[in-house]
């Protein structure tokens, strides 16, 4: 697997990530369709995600929380807008409080996922994140930066533990 391309479009406010996997599309689809697999990669290692609800159907809702190193919980939700099973889906992805109420102060991102056959048994995946406003993108970049740093730190910890 690799990320093959990343495109940031400042006028459309989108981030497009292209990746390729050696596994077949039906298998890769389960990374999203099976909540137990989804929660193993959605959050960074130090903020693992737990999916409480998971209805990957049109109009369905997925809710999750990520648990931080201090036991702190961060709640999020997806609203499923379209699904073509095994091929694509689109959700609105936002934040919530502990009771599952939508947090209107934090950004809502549109996430579209498209799977296609690579032709040799592998799968191409395109993930398009769309931000409503530049301010939301900036807020997410700041939050994402923290997450990115935490990923890096988690990896450093693993290296240190091996040494």
């Amino acid at each position, binding site marked *: *697997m*690799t*990320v093959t391309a*990343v495109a*940031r479009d400042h006028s459309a406010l989108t*981030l497009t*990530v292209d*990746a390729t*996997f*050696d*596994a077949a599309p039906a*298998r*890769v689809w389960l*990374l999203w369709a099976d909540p137990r*697999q989804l929660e*193993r*990669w*959605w959050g*960074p*290692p130090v903020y693992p995600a737990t999916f409480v609800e998971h209805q990957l159907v049109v109009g369905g809702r997925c809710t999750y929380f990520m648990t931080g190193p201090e036991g702190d919980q961060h709640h999020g939700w997806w609203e499923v807008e379209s699904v073509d099973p095994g091929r694509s889906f689109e959700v609105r992805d936002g934040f919530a409080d502990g009771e599952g109420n939508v947090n209107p102060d934090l950004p809502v991102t549109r996430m579209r996922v498209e799977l296609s056959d690579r032709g040799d048994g592998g799968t191409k995946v395109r*993930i398009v*994140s769309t931000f409503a406003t*530049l*301010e939301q*993108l*900036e*807020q*997410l*970049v*700041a939050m*994402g*930066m923290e*997450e*990115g*740093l935490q*990923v*890096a730190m988690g990896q450093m910890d693993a290296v240190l533990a091996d040494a």
Partner: protein
Amino acid sequence: MVVDELSAGDVDRIFHALADATRRDILRQVMITESSVSALARHYPVSLTAVQKHVAVLEEAGLVSKERRGRELRVRAEITAVRRAMQLLEQYEAVWRGRVDRMSAVLDEHEGVPR
């Protein structure tokens, strides 16, 4: 890592400064060549005071610096700071790069491929 040198306050100031189209345009202008505040003001349909305020916000974020030369106040881009802002933007990619790595690990594990 460069981002380690930025406090949360630094990050907030940079994103606040870049959230405005006029300020982004001012920054683009002075990245090409340094300019006086009054010359900048002629580019925009706003008052000189408004442009001075925009320059002050950019300056607080460390993206530009001002220097008095005679009667003129010259503005120039702090290229290092602009690079840092771009690096911040790239950090958003790190979220998805991390996820893709973990997705790959999940797939490999289910197929019994040792890692």
